[in-house]
């Protein structure tokens, strides 16, 4: 990682490129040039490099490193105020950006405090970090608050008076107040979590008389942490039938409370208690405001998710051990903070064992089977399992993780690239566990699993031991396992091409990739002379292709109508619409831009077709999805674009997907289509709400925006209601279409089960939107508003992760 540090400050342009050459050129100025080019960093850069690299190298004893850094810091900082400022700022920033290093950085500061004159620097560090905590509280950056308090907790022994305990007591007081006001409050538990995660750091510091305080604090947090949160069931990853191995998932807060109670009962066995007679520093007061800012991200109870639970050998800490929560917390923070450099994030994951006591884990890349040979009493925790588990906990976080899902994909990809021998087998076991439990998994999560799985394979030559799932290939398409296989293969094909994927599969899977799927351009059905309206279909297609005018096309459309009436066919308009839309698909089959330019040309007719006839839109979707039935991903894409053109409406997509055919619920692409459509609607509502609640609007603007907001919100609620009705129909077995084919009883039950899974996902979506809305329209003190994007963008991403600029961490570091 030394690489990151050898660069000049990033604010200047060209950082890391030409400037590097230039730096070497500077050496020409040295009077007598040595034989080999030597270069030593200026003091500030040297100190920075040392501190940044703390605990990273397994070759150095970290105890020696800590002392050395403290000495260097003392030497350079005493004489140069600029270097001192940089050092203090870097300490604070490391605390926020690389949480693994908090104990080590705290140790440097403790050593510095014992060196004569070092205490001045320490005082600055304490007040700087306290300032960060204060800013974090004000802005609702609760992770910053937690990291800052962990660090200050590590310094408890050199803090005057009660030190960090005072802050924790205030925080607890606030949490209790909130809890009494409103039971469903999510900030209260978040505050308690911060307290509980700080305590172990205090206990590990060189403080005395903390045991009593810890015990009473833990006793007091119990009223909040001891009860599961009311929203917990909403975010349960395995709502299933309770039959699976992954039956119950505990809340992190409750677990941590229990773990700390156990530690306290044992008298904190693992924590040293050595106080040195060193200068004390007063912690600047940190105040908790009356109205607590929940921060930019909606808070939900956090559950402890693990893909390595219940193995025959224990490769990750059990939830009975406090190590489970402490490791997970530091890992998750590291992963989420470092989203701006996935390589660094995955490096941390691989080097996890550097940051914990020797003996915490087995050697890296120890094969699972070899764990049996580990002697009794020694740890069998695999560092790579612990790391991978933490990434999965984010990938499978409900309702949504902090960053886009693809970030967590990329972390796993990089980790696998850095240490394939260690990570790949861990991923294999994770995949098997998830697959085994897919029947009881939340539908949103099984879709995420599929999306990650196919994307991951695409980065590693599409190799997977498909043979182990061969028995499931012959299952009904309504079985979640089979649906997963089919969906994953389709996604693989979309990232690659059918023939390539076919080549990676064992024989029984070959039939899942039909000859039609291998065709680049699906046939134009009207080329089949035996099909009704074949002649007209071909004519319409030819006219659209040569850009004929609407006046030329209209007579042929009418021919279809009159013939249909003669033949006593129902719904002649649907028939002509089918011919028209199928022609567009065929002409545009070469690529997405082809179909888009064709739609653009035919926009007016398509718009009027959609509105003129109640079933017009449904027919348009039918034609698109019918034409692309073997490559439904392309169809979904086209439907998405048609929504943007308002040729389709969200209701029409929902109607197509949910109201007619129960087996559609098992298709991954249908879920994708509906999720994207709902995402568009909710994204739009959020934009409008943000615009309407922005500051500095005139009364008139406010009125207009409020009106728009109400209209959009009503439309959204209606859409959710339509979904609710349709899905309740499937889930309860009330839909009459449900009795369609042969083996009704079991298929019926499966469709019902799919209905329930869907219902859960979209009820949660609705609840999340409502919660977001209530938070967004709350009155806030000046300067604490939600982030508002100036230019409202109607089509903003479906995921809508409002991650506020991660670049501006830590006020006052310049």
């Amino acid at each position: 990682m030394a690489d990151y540090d050898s660069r000049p400050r990033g604010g200047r342009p060209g950082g890391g490129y030409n400037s590097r050459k230039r730096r070497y050129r500077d050496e020409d100025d040295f009077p007598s040039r040595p034989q080999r080019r030597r270069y030593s960093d200026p003091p500030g850069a040297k100190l920075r490099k040392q501190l940044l690299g703390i605990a990273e190298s397994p070759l150095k004893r970290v105890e020696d490193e800590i002392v050395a850094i403290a000495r260097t810091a003392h030497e350079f900082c005493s004489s140069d105020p600029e270097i001192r400022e940089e050092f203090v700022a870097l300490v604070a920033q490391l605390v926020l950006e690389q949480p693994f290093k908090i104990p080590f950085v705290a140790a440097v500061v403790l050593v510095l405090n014992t060196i004569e004159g070092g205490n001045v620097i320490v005082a600055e560090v304490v007040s700087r970090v306290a300032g960060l905590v204060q800013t974090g509280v004000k802005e609702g950056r609760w992770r910053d608050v937690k990291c800052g308090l962990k660090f200050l907790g590590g310094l408890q022994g050199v803090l005057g008076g009660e030190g960090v305990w005072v802050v924790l007591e205030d925080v607890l007081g606030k949490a209790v107040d909130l809890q009494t006001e409103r039971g469903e409050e999510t900030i209260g538990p978040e505050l308690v979590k911060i307290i509980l995660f700080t305590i172990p750091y205090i206990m590990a510091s060189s403080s005395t008389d903390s045991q009593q305080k810890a015990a009473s604090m833990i006793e007091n947090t119990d009223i909040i942490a001891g009860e599961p949160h009311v929203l917990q069931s909403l975010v349960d990853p395995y709502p299933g039938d309770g039959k699976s191995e992954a039956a119950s998932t505990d809340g992190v807060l409750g677990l941590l409370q229990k773990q700390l109670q156990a530690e306290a009962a044992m008298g904190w066995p693992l924590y040293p208690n050595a106080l040195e007679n060193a200068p004390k520093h007063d912690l600047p007061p940190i105040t908790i405001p009356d109205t607590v800012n929940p921060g930019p991200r909606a808070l939900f109870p956090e559950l402890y998710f693990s893909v390595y639970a219940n193995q025959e050998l224990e490769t990750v800490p059990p939830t009975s051990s406090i190590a489970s929560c402490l490791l997970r917390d530091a890992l998750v923070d590291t992963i989420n903070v470092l989203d701006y450099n996935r390589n660094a994030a995955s490096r941390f994951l691989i080097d996890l064992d550097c940051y914990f006591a020797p003996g915490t884990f087995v050697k890296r890349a120890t094969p699972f089977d070899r764990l049996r040979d580990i002697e009794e009493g020694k740890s069998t925790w695999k560092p790579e399992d612990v790391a991978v588990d933490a990434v999965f906990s984010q990938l499978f976080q409900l309702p949504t993780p902090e960053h886009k899902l693809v970030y967590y994909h990329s972390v796993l990809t990089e980790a696998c690239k850095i240490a394939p021998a260690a990570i790949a087998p861990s991923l294999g076991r994770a995949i098997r566990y998830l697959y085994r439990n897919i029947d009881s998994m939340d539908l949103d999560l099984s879709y995420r699993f599929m999306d990650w799985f196919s994307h991951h394979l695409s980065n590693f030559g599409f190799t997977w031991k498909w043979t182990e799932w061969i028995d499931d290939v012959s299952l009904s398409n309504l079985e979640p396992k089979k649906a997963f296989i089919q969906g994953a293969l389709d996604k693989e094909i979309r990232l690659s091409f059918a023939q390539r994927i076919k080549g990676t599969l064992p024989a029984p899977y070959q039939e899942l990739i039909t000859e039609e799927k291998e065709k680049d351009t699906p046939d134009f059905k009207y080329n089949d002379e035996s099909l009704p309206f074949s002649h007209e279909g071909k004519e319409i297609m030819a006219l659209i292709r040569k850009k004929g005018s609407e006046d030329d096309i209209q007579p042929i459309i009418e021919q279809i109508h009159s013939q249909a009436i003669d033949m006593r066919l129902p719904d002649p308009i649907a028939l002509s619409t089918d011919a028209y839309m199928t022609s567009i698909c065929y002409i545009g089959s070469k690529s997405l831009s082809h179909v888009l330019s064709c739609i653009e040309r035919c926009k007016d007719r398509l718009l009027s077709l959609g509105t003129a006839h109640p079933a017009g839109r449904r027919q348009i979707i039918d034609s698109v999805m019918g034409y692309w039935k073997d490559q439904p991903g392309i169809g979904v894409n086209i439907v998405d674009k048609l929504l943007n053109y308002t040729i389709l409406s969200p209701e029409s997509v929902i109607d197509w997907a949910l109201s007619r055919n129960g087996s559609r619920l098992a298709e991954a692409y249908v879920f994708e289509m509906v999720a994207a459509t709902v995402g568009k609607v909710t994204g739009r509502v959020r934009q409008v709400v943000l615009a309407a609640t922005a500051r500095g609007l005139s009364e008139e603007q406010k009125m207009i925006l409020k009106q728009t907001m109400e209209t959009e919100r009503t439309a959204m609620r209606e859409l959710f209601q339509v979904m609710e009705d349709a899905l309740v129909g499937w889930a309860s077995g009330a839909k009459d279409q449900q009795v369609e084919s042969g083996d009704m009883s079991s298929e019926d039950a499966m469709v019902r089960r799919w209905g329930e899974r869907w219902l859960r996902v979209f009820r949660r979506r609705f609840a999340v939107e409502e919660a977001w809305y209530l938070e967004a329209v709350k009155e806030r003190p000046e300067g604490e508003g939600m982030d508002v994007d100036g230019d409202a963008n109607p089509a903003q991403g479906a995921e809508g992760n409002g991650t506020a600029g991660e670049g501006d961490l830590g006020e006052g570091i310049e």
Partner: protein
Amino acid sequence: MPGTVRNTVERLDRPSAYYHSRNRKRKYDRDNEDGREKSEEPAGDPLKDATTLYVGNLSFYTTEEQIHELFSKCGEIKRLIMGLDRFNKTPCGFCFVEYYTHQDALDCMKYIGGTKLDERIIRTDLDPGFQEGRQYGRGKSGGQVRDEYREEYDEGRGGLGRAIQAERLKEEEEYGRGR
């Protein structure tokens, strides 16, 4: 340095050295009088709100649909422009992806740049925005410049560099086959 706190590790959502060097060349006369690089003032930075990415090192056979599939993982795509050979109008291994938001483009730099598409490591770079004409290769023979003189055989990008292929062909014609 107001507003630009340096992170403890490098950020992946910065424009590449390529962009900077091109930009510097263009601005050289005006800005670099004192021989030092001026800091890129946020106000004048053409990438400040960039929503477009240049995507490079694609295979010639990679389709719009494949690109769409991968890049939409970072947000809805507003526009996708395939890079084409100036003469044959066939894909020549690059494209522009335009998102609706700047954040999506930055996320794409962080999460997708440097990962694989169609089994090749692809490169992404922030771009000030697509302009007509930029979809064509600027190499002598119509493709990208890098595909003119490439000495390594790259199956996904037409084998050897075109200039080298042409040279070999000429040699064969002049000296006969089997040389």
